[in-house]
Every structure is written in structure tokens, then in C-alpha cells.
């Protein structure tokens, strides 16, 4: 459970707040996504919820952040280890550098938590399997591709079984298969009752997987709601977020009356196919909308 109330934060060298009056909650079994432009405070928010900001960064904070009921201002970072997992944006910053193989790297967190050896094996192998890393288990983390390192960084946190999981763009370097593995893993976490806060730029899977989407703009939450609502908002680009092509196509089609009236703009393939299927059916029946008036002049971008 994550609870953030009236939270503002300024970095020690910052001239303006990185976060302003942020308030939201994420419940267990909920996947809440955070989207927004570059430098709008998303990674800072990830740090706040995982306790590294301001404990490690310094700076001035106002407001309350509670994780599983504990006030983070009064909880030392060591008290959160194993309970809150943070997957950092750049896997290179996360890989310990102290271990010689992928398997040992995944074991590293468990060693530090003092997990018995036989239990370690039972926890590590399924994580390797789920993230498609079994084939590279004996390689050095530094011999992996960027995408594989990203999966390793995720695995090294998953294996500690945190009850709150914060991921800062975990799929940025992943191919479609890796992306699917990560979202499958997140789905399983949710079922297990984990609270998930996910910062993400790639919208298609997010649109299907997220229960709720928060938009951060210049350190403030400017919108929050179900993905179908937030990701179809016409202000999305102004907020620095690329809309899905499905939404763009439907919005342009709607301007030419080629998207069904009253149907919300789609953020998934299914919804787009349903809406455009209706349009095609209507055209087939001979109802050409207002195309007769506008003809084929222009608007053929």
C-alpha cells in the first residue's frame, strides 16, 4: 500500500520543486502507472516511494509518504529492504558489480537478506525462467545486451519478493518478447497482492495492464483515472506523452465522421478494431457520412 499526501520536494541544488503537492494512493493488487514528459519528476517520485528520496539525496520535503502504513520520513532505508523494491531506469546503476554471473547477481539481494541457501535456489530459478534468463545464467552481467541487463535488474528485485514494487521504465530497452515477459511478471505480482507503481513510456501494454494512470507535468499530478480515459485525453501530447496510434487514427477519423459517434477514442487494438469495424460496416451499407459534402478534397494526410 502506497499513500502520498500533500507531498512536495526540492533537491538540494534545485531552484524549483521537483514535486509539488502530490497526492495519490495505490492499493495492494493494484497497478498504477505514472506517465509524463522528460524531467517532470517521474523518477523523483519513484525515489520518494522507495525511500531513496530524500534519505540519500538530501533536499527539503513536505507532506507525508506512507508505505504499508509506515511513515517513510521516520523509517530508515534499511527498514525498507526486502519490503519495497525499486527497479532503476538504468540497469547499469543497479547491477552490483560484485558478482560474476547472472545467477549470483540475482542471489546477491537474498544473501544480504540472510535467506538460507536451499531456499535461495528455490527462489532464483523460477525468476530466471520467468524472465527468459535461464540460458545466460552463467554469463557475466557485463556480457549481456542492454535488454538482458534490464531483465536481470528486474529479476534481482523480484527475487526478494517485495510487497511494494516500484519500476522506473523497466522495458525501455526490451524487445517485444522481453516486454511481454515483464508485463506477465507484473500481472503475477498483482495476483500475489503486490502494490505496483510503474513509470512507463510505452503505452500499448500499459493501456491494457494498468488499473489507473497518473500524469505528472512539471512535478504536479495533472490527471489521473482509468487508462481508457487518461490516454485518450486530447491534452496528452501537451503533457509530453505520445498517444497511441489507435487513438490518433480515431481522432483524425472522427474529424471526418469516420469514427462512430459517442464511442470513446480507443487506446487498445480491440477497441480500435471494434470502432473502425463499425465504420466499415456503415460505409458498406452505403452510409458515407458527410463525405458527400466534403468529397475527397484535402484532409488526406
Amino acid at each position, binding site marked *: 500500500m502506497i499513500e502520498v499526501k500533500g507531498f512536495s520536494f526540492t533537491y538540494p*541544488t534545485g531552484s524549483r520543486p521537483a514535486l509539488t503537492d502530490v497526492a495519490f494512493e495505490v492499493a495492494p493488487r493494484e497497478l498504477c502507472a505514472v506517465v*509524463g*514528459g*522528460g*524531467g517532470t519528476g517521474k*523518477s523523483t517520485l519513484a525515489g520518494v516511494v522507495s525511500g531513496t528520496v530524500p534519505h540519500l539525496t538530501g533536499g527539503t520535503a513536505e507532506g507525508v509518504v506512507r508505505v504499508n502504513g509506515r511513515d517513510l520520513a521516520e523509517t530508515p532505508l534499511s527498514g525498507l529492504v526486502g519490503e519495497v523494491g525499486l527497479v532503476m*531506469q*538504468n540497469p*547499469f546503476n543497479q547491477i552490483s558489480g560484485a558478482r560474476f554471473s547472472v545467477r549470483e547477481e540475482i542471489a546477491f539481494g537474498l544473501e544480504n537478506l540472510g535467506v538460507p541457501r536451499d531456499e535461495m535456489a528455490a527462489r532464483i530459478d523460477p525468476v530466471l525462467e520467468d524472465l527468459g534468463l535461464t540460458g*545466460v545464467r552463467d*554469463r*557475466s552481467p557485463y*556480457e*549481456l*545486451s*542492454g*535488454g*538482458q541487463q534490464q*531483465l536481470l535488474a528486474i529479476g534481482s528485485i523480484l527475487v526478494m519478493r517485495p510487497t511494494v514494487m516500484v519500476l522506473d*521504465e523497466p522495458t*525501455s*530497452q*526490451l*524487445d*517485444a*518478447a*522481453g516486454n*511481454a515477459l515483464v508485463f506477465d511478471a507484473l500481472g503475477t505480482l498483482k495476483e500475489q497482492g503486490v502494490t505496483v507503481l510503474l513509470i512507463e*513510456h510505452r503505452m*500499448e501494454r500499459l493501456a491494457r495492464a494498468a488499473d489507473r494512470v497518473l500524469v505528472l507535468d512539471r512535478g504536479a499530478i495533472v490527471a489521473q483515472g482509468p487508462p481508457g480515459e487518461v490516454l485518450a485525453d486530447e491534452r*496528452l*501530447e501537451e503533457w*509530453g*506523452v*505520445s*498517444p*497511441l*496510434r*489507435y487513438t*490518433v*487514427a480515431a481522432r*483524425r*477519423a472522427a474529424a*471526418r465522421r*469516420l469514427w462512430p459517434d459517442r464511442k470513446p477514442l480507443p487506446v487498445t*487494438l480491440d477497441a*480500435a*478494431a*471494434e470502432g*473502425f*469495424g463499425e*465504420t*466499415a*460496416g456503415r*460505409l*458498406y451499407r452505403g452510409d*458515407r457520412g458527410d*463525405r458527400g459534402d466534403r468529397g475527397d478534397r484535402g484532409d*488526406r*494526410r
Partner: protein
Amino acid sequence: MIIRIDSLTFRYPNGTTALDGVSFGVGAGERVAIVGANGAGKSTLARHLVGIERPASGTVEIDGRPTDRLGIAELARTVGFVFQNPDDQLHAASVVKEVGFGPRNLRFPAARRAELVESALRRTGLTAARDTHPHHLSLGERKRVALASVLAMDTPVVVLDEPTTGQDHASIVLLGNLVDSLAADGRTVLAITHDMDFCVEHFDRVIVLANGRVAWDGPVVDWPAHVADTADESLELPQMTRLGRRLGWAGPVTTVAGFLERLPAEAGPAPVPPGG
């Protein structure tokens, strides 16, 4: 051909074969996207173009000269490489110093240097951040600093490793325009990308790498059909291609513009196969 790769094979010291007989050529002004699974050899291939790696066998020729006979400095005049991780590349105390580093090392005259730096900052949307320390920028901004520092070297070939990663909407639009304008100026752009929509909107040609080999090489319009024919799970069709297929349209659709152009003509009651 500004780039000519012939039977390139490369093994890492641990014995892993990263590239296995790769051959292709790229002409001036071409926009080529290199796609494929994580670990397929994409970044290793890119590293050969700038001479960071040298071929175990086979040849890599840049502008008619094999890279193993060119010094790094000479290669740097021809091929600009923007790393996947900007922190592998950035070192100066301000954005403008970072961007000026390359042209200074290439000993361009001061006036040309200033012009190249300003133009690179403008094209990457960093003019306002010129005096900022790169450490105080977001990852997406640092990636654009790395890109600007390569643009300022005015190389005929620009290689981008995952350019859209971590970028917000305005920056992705800017990057797309940049790829188009570099090619229009006759410069060659190679980009490694997982962003298939970006790929179909801004590139002419796609090369698919799989297990260190060229699995497919052809014009971007033909590429969706290839992906559909293979069961390669690492590749994802562009959104509009999947929508067109779901609606039962024949032939490829890749972009929003292409989709909307065909929509009025697709007047059949579309079959909607589940999960298709």
C-alpha cells in the same frame, strides 16, 4: 555505398558468437532501421561501424576503406555513434562544452565549430539547456546531449542506438524530424530500435538481425509481411499494421496516414477474427 559490410563475423572473448556472416551495403542518404531481439547482435554490429570492435573475419568498409586500416580518429570523421546509454559518452561540465568537444578534436575552424554546435543544440531542442551540467538533466535529455555532440561532428554517417528510449512526445517528434532532415541532406542514418511505429514512420529500409545473422533486409513497406510470416516473438508489428490485419484488410498498412487513406475504400463488413 558509404557502408559495405561483407561476411562479418565476431566473437566475444568468452566464445559467444555475436555476429555470424553479416553482409549488407548502405548508400548515402539512406535511412536504415536495424531491428531484432535483445542479444541479436545489433549493438555489436553498430560498434563495428565506429571501430570500437574489429572484425574477427570479414570486412567493414566505410566510404571504400576497411575499418581495420583506419584509425579511430579517421573513423570519427565519417561515422558518428550515439550510444544507447548516454552516460557511456558524456564527460564535460556543461552541455555546450560537451557538444563542442567533438568539433574541437576534429580541429574544425572556430567559426565552423560555433555554427555546428549551435545547429546541433537547436536540432536536439537543447539551446535553453546549453549551460546546464549534463548530470542535472533527465535521462532523455542526456540522450539528446549525446546525440547533439555527435551531430556537431558533421559526419556523413550517423548511427543511433535506441534513440527514442526515455524520450517524451516532443522529443520523439523532434528525433523523427531529425532523421528525415539528415537523410534529406544526404547523410546516412542507421538506427537500432525496438520502436516499430517510429521505424515505419521515419525509415526507408529495415534489416532484421537474428542470432547474429541478417534474417531479412528490405524496404520498410514489405517488412510487416515478413514479421507476420515468421513467428519471431521479439518483433512486434506496428499498431496500424495490426489494426489493418484485424479488420481483414489485404496488403500492408503501416502508418496512421496510410490507414486513414484506405479507410473510406475499405467498405466491406470486416471479419474480426478473435486475437488476429
